[in-house]
C-alpha cells in the first residue's frame, strides 16, 4: 500500500482532474458536480456495455440460457473479492430502492415489531417502511432524530438513548430491524457505521446498512462490518452503468429473503431465486466488471484519496467564497460529498416557496451546472460531489456561481419586501 502522501491530491492530481474529462461522456462546457445522485461512467464502460448488449443479440438463447448465469456468477465472485465476503452472499439487483424493498418486504414482521430508522434516511427507504407499516398489523417506526453537525460519539449516544427509551416503554413491542445509512444522502454524512452495527446487533436488532453511496467512495469490508443486510449502488461511485446494485444477505437470513418479483426458481434457494430477474437487459449489471477494470488502472486508494481530499478542500474553498461554513467540521464525516451552507437570508424565501424548482431551473438554464439544494436545521445547504474528473478550480467556479445565485435571491427579497 502506498503512503498517503504519494497518492493524488488536489494540489498534485496525477492522472486525475481535467485530464480525465476525455475519458467520460461530458459535452463541452458541462461540468458534473452532482455525481452522487445518478452517477456517470467512462466511455470505456459504455463501450463495454454496448458489447455485452450486442453479444446477447448475436444469440439470445445462448446468452440467456447459458452464458448469462456464468457471467453473473463470475461478477458476484469478483464483487465478493472486492467487498471481502462470499459470492453466495451477494445478489445483483437494479438499484438500492429495489434492494431495500427486497429486504424490508421479505421480513415477516409480526404485530409489535418496530423498525428503527434515522430522520436523515433516504425518502424511498422511508416510504418502503411506511408501506410495510400500512399493510401489516401493529408494525411501527421508532425514529432517531438527527440534526447535524453532531459528532460520531454523540450520534451513537442518540441511538442508544432512542433504543433505551423504547425499552422503557415496556409495552411488549420490540425493535426488530434498524436501517442505518453508511453515507446519508442529504445531508451527506459518513456515519460511524461499524460502531452502529456492533451496538445494534448487541441489542439483538437486525441491521440493514443502506450503503447506496458506499462502494467506490469508501473501502467496504463486509466481513469486518458483518451487517445482517447491506445494499450498495455500483452505478453511483463505482462507475458502472445505471441499474446495477449489489445486495448482501448474510447466509443465516437467506431462506426468508425473496426477490421483489418472484420467478420460476421460487423456493430453490437464494442463489437460484436471485440469479434471474426475468427477461431484461443485463448489460448494466455486466458493466460492473468493466467499471472495476477501469478503476484498477489507478487503484482504489488513489481514487478514494483524491476524491476525498478534493471534497474537503473544495468544500472549504466554496465556504470561503460564500462566507459560510461546511456542515461538518470533521474530515472523517466527509467522504466525497460535502455540504456547504448557502447564505440565503430568508429561510422561507417566497420565490423558493412558490416555485420549488426555481434554483434548479436557474442552474440548468443560466449556468449549466447542478448541485442539489436542501434544508437542514433551519438553514439552506448544497451538496457537492467530488470526482476524479474535477479539480479545485471547478469548486471555485461553483462557489462563485452559488454566490451569484444567493446574492440575487437575497436581493429579490429586499425588493419584494413590504414595509
Amino acid at each position, binding site marked *: 500500500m502506498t503512503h498517503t502522501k504519494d497518492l493524488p491530491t488536489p494540489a498534485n492530481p496525477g492522472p486525475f482532474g481535467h485530464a480525465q474529462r476525455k475519458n467520460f461522456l461530458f459535452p463541452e462546457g458541462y461540468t458534473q458536480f452532482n455525481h452522487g*445522485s445518478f452517477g456517470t461512467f467512462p466511455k470505456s464502460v459504455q463501450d463495454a456495455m454496448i458489447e455485452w448488449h450486442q453479444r446477447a443479440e448475436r444469440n439470445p438463447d445462448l446468452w440467456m440460457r447459458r452464458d448469462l448465469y456464468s457471467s453473473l456468477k463470475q461478477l458476484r465472485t469478483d464483487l465478493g473479492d472486492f467487498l471481502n465476503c462470499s459470492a453466495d452472499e451477494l445478489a445483483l439487483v437494479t438499484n438500492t430502492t429495489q434492494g431495500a424493498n427486497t429486504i424490508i418486504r421479505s421480513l415477516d414482521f409480526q404485530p409489535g415489531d418496530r423498525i428503527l430508522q434515522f430522520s436523515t434516511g433516504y425518502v424511498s427507504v422511508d*416510504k418502503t417502511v411506511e408501506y410495510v407499516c400500512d399493510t401489516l398489523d401493529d408494525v411501527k417506526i421508532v425514529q432517531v432524530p438527527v440534526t447535524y453537525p453532531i459528532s460520531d460519539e454523540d450520534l451513537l449516544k442518540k441511538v442508544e438513548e432512542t433504543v433505551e427509551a423504547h425499552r422503557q416503554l415496556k409495552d411488549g413491542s420490540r425493535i426488530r430491524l434498524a436501517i442505518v445509512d453508511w453515507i446519508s444522502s442529504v445531508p451527506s454524512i459518513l456515519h460511524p457505521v461499524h460502531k452502529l452495527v456492533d451496538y445494534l446487533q448487541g441489542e439483538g436488532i437486525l441491521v440493514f446498512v443502506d450503503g447506496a453511496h458506499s462502494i467506490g467512495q469508501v473501502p467496504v469490508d463486509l466481513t469486518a462490518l458483518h451487517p445482517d443486510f447491506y445494499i450498495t449502488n455500483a452505478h453511483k461511485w463505482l462507475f458502472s452503468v445505471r441499474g446495477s446494485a449489489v445486495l448482501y444477505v448474510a447466509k443465516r437470513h437467506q431462506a426468508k429473503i425473496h426477490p421483489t418479483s*418472484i420467478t420460476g426458481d421460487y423456493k430453490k434457494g437464494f442463489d437460484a431465486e436471485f440469479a434471474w430477474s426475468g427477461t*431484461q437487459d443485463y448489460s448494466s449489471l455486466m458493466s460492473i466488471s468493466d467499471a472495476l477494470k477501469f478503476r484498477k488502472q489507478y487503484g482504489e486508494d488513489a481514487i478514494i484519496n483524491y476524491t476525498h481530499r478534493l471534497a474537503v478542500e473544495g468544500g472549504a474553498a466554496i465556504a470561503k467564497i460564500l462566507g459560510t461554513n461546511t456542515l461538518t467540521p470533521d474530515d472523517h464525516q466527509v467522504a466525497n460529498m460535502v455540504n456547504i451552507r448557502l447564505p440565503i437570508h430568508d429561510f422561507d424565501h417566497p420565490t423558493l416557496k412558490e416555485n420549488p424548482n426555481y434554483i434548479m431551473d436557474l442552474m440548468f438554464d443560466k449556468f449549466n451546472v*447542478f448541485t442539489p439544494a436542501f434544508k437542514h436545521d433551519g438553514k439552506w445547504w448544497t451538496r457537492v460531489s467530488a470526482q476524479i474528473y474535477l479539480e479545485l478550480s471547478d469548486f471555485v467556479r461553483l462557489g462563485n456561481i452559488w454566490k451569484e445565485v444567493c446574492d440575487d435571491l437575497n436581493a429579490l427579497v429586499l425588493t419584494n419586501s413590504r414595509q
Partner: protein
Amino acid sequence: MTPSLLPTPTHPGPFGHKQRKNFFFPEGFTQFNHGSYGTFPRAVQDNMMKWHNQAEENPDRWVRLDLRPALTQVRSQLASFMNCDKNELALVQNTTVGVNTVLRSLDFQPGDCILQLSTGYVSVDKTVHYICDSHKNVQIVEVPITMPLSDHEIVYQVEKAVQQHLAKNDSSRIRIAMIDWISSVPAVVHPIKALTDMLKSYNILVFIDGAHAIGQVPVDLSYINPDFFITNCHKWLLSVRGSAVLYVPKKYQSGIHPTAIQGDYKTGGFELEFSWNGTMDYSTMLSVEGALEFRKQYGEEAIMHYTHRLAVEGGQLMADILGTNVLTPYEHQVGSMVNVRLPIKDVNHPKIATPDYLIKHLLDKYNLFAPSYLHGGYFWTRVSSQIYLELKDFERLGNVWKEVIAELNSETDRGYDDGTSQ
C-alpha cells in the same frame, strides 16, 4: 388493405431474408425462438442509444426534467396502440414484474382463491404460490388443460372449474383468475374475450397475462376490458429487453403499488408511483418508441399477417418432414408461434429428462434453438415465426429436428444404459 395484398410466405414482400440485415444476426445463425427473449432491429438499438446518450449529457436534467415526459410519451403511443387511456398504463421491466406488482398489491383475505390454468407460465405460477405461502388460507384453483382444445372447450373447462368451486359452498371465493392470452408452452392463442366475459360474469377479477400479445395479435383493451393486463414489448413488438407495459384501470389504481416502493408512495398517485423505479437505465423502456417507428414502415397488419401465415405453413411443412402433426387444428389458435410434435419414440428417454441435452445439442451442433417440452404425453417443439424468416428456414429446422430425433430414437432402439430410470 385487402388480405391478398398482405405479405405471405410465398410472396414475402419486404419480409424474409432481406430483413436479416436490419437485425444483429451473425452469418450462419437463424433465430427460431423469437418468443422467448425477442430481438430487435439496429434501428431500435440506435433509438435506445439515443436515449442513453441523452441521459449522459446531463444526468440531472435528464432525470429531473426530461425523463418523465419521455416515458409519458411512450405510454401515449402504447395507449393509442392498445385503445386505452395512457393514465391506465405503467411501464415495467417485464411480465414477471407486472404480475408481481398486481398480485403482491392485492389485499388477499382468508378464503380467497386464485384461479389459474395448468398451462400458465412458471413464474406466474410461482408468484401465485408465494401469495398462498405468505397469506392465511389463500388457495389455488387449478384448471387442468391438455391441448388441443377448441375455443369452446377451453371456456367450458374453465367455467366448469368455477362452477365446481361454487358447488363446494364453503364460503371461499375465487377472487382473481390468471389467464394467458397466448400461452408459452404450448403456445396457443386463447379465446380471451369469451374467457374474460365469462369470468367477470362470476365476479372474478381477470388478470390477462398477455406476455406474448402485443405485436403478435391485435390488442384492444377497451374491447377486451380486463381488470389487469400485462404484455412484453420486448417480445413481439421488437423493443429492447426490459420493456413491458402494465394496464391497471383507474378504479383499481389506489390499491396497486410497485414492487419497489419509492418516494412518491401515497403522495404522488399511480402515475408518479410508477414513473420512477429508482435510478436505472430507462433507455430500454424508451426504445418502444423506436420499435413502433420501425413497425410503422410496414404496418401492423402486414407484419402480423406474414408472421401468422408463416407460422401456419411453416409448422405444417415441419410436421410433414417429421411425419407428425401440429398441436392445434385451429389456425386461429396459432399466432406467430407453432407447436410441432417431435417423433420421439421414448418420451422417458433420460437425455430429455431435462432440457440441457437438447439445448446444448441444438446450439453447439446446429447453431440454432427451438424449445421442446412435454405436453399431453408427447414431446413438442415450439417454433417462432418472424419477419426475418422464410419457409425454407422452417424446412431446414424440420430436417435438423429429424436428424436429432433419429439419433435419439436409434439409442432407444439399441437400448441404452440409463442408470437414472424415472
